[in-house]
């Protein structure tokens, strides 16, 4: 039996720092084609027909099962179905286990279909992008849920694609409250080949892009909860010993790429002061997933947790 390809320390640090991992064209074409067949045909636009009706009929006719929240992910999908086959791919299984542990729990899924302008015009609605939001509710937990976004067909830039803002996942906000942020420096749009997967931290800010092409865009999302601890579920053997403290601020040459350097790389949208708080929150999450409560990078935590600050006067 072959061991699962678990995520490496560099992969995990990237996920902790940026809130996503992208796997391009990793799902085989036969699974992509099977999934699109399971979705079924989408009827063309029809004057006076509301999109909600099209959507309702699409979901009803699709061979994608209704699944109760809270069941084991391993039992959520019928054997031989496209999603069951996708979840069994070693890369997918290994990445899921690395992020939410063995025996993860199915939360919910949804078939996101983004329609071209003709559908909106026929139904008397406006063709606009989705407001930027964070899924679910304010989430103060130490861990996170995983959202797997599956792109079964090619997505071009005119088709919109999922828009997301790397590094926003540690912000404690309330769902659509951030809808007024139309554009943020560093935002990305998912333009990809068929069979691409985007693994998202449940806190990342995102929204569906407006579809300006003539073709419908299909994306399938699965939210997954951890069933056990998320501590050290990835390939711990790839974690090098923590290097000696590196120089900070006054630095004369480029530093090597390490877990520390990944966690200390800012995003283009970082505010000058809260960008430092982002570093601290990344380190708190790294301490959690690495099971290393003493971890620090670039002296941020050591400075704050210095026991000498709290020591009583020397009795001698």
């Amino acid at each position, binding site marked *: 039996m072959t061991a699962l390809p678990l995520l490496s320390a560099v992969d995990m640090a990237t996920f902790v720092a940026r809130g996503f991992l992208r796997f391009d064209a990793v799902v085989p074409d036969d699974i992509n084609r099977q999934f699109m067949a399971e979705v079924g045909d989408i009827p063309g636009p029809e004057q006076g027909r509301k999109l909600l009706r099209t959507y309702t009929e699409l979901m009803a006719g699709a061979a994608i099962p209704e699944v109760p929240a809270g069941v084991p992910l391993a039992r959520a999908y019928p054997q031989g179905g496209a999603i069951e086959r996708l979840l069994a791919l070693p890369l997918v299984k290994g990445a899921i286990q690395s992020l939410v542990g063995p025996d993860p729990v199915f939360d919910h899924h949804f078939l996101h279909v983004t329609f071209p302008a003709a559908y909106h015009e026929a139904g008397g609605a*406006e063709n*606009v*992008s*989705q*407001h*930027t939001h964070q899924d679910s509710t304010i989430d103060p937990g130490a861990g996170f849920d995983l959202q797997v976004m599956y792109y079964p067909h090619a997505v071009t830039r005119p088709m*919109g694609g999922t*828009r997301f803002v790397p590094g926003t996942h*540690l*912000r*404690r*906000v309330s769902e659509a*409250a*951030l*809808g*007024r*942020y*139309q*554009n*943020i*420096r560093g*935002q990305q*749009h998912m333009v990809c080949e068929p069979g691409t997967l985007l693994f998202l931290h449940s806190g990342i800010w995102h*929204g569906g*892009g*407006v579809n300006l092409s003539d073709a419908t865009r299909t994306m399938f999302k699965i939210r997954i909860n951890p069933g056990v601890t998320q501590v050290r579920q990835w390939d711990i053997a790839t974690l090098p010993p923590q290097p000696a403290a590196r120089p900070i601020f006054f630095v004369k040459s480029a530093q090597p790429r390490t877990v520390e350097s990944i966690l200390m790389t800012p995003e*283009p*949208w*970082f*505010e*000058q*002061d*809260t960008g430092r*708080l*982002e570093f*601290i*929150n990344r380190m708190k999450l790294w301490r959690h997933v690495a099971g290393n409560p003493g971890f620090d990078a670039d002296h941020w935590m050591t400075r704050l947790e210095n026991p000498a600050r709290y020591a009583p006067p020397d009795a001698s």
Partner: protein
Amino acid sequence: MQRQKVLVLYLANSALDAPVIGWAVYDGTGQTRPMAGDNDEAPYATGVDALKDGWRLIQAAQLLPHHGSDEFDVSYLKYEFFFEQLVEVAV
């Protein structure tokens, strides 16, 4: 008849000449339809650049103290500046 256009800039700190990190536009004239994700390039480099282009500042985010025990929490973008332009439209 006049209609209002609104520009919202999010800056890297509380100074109006700080770099723009986020932005939004709302157009009361109806001539354009700005929306989420419609532009990856900021309309101005700083808030002051918007002033130089004729936008009038109408609101700036307050600086608020940090509550005990959640000093390290991050949430919404802090440095939000609202600008307006009044545009003549035919009725």
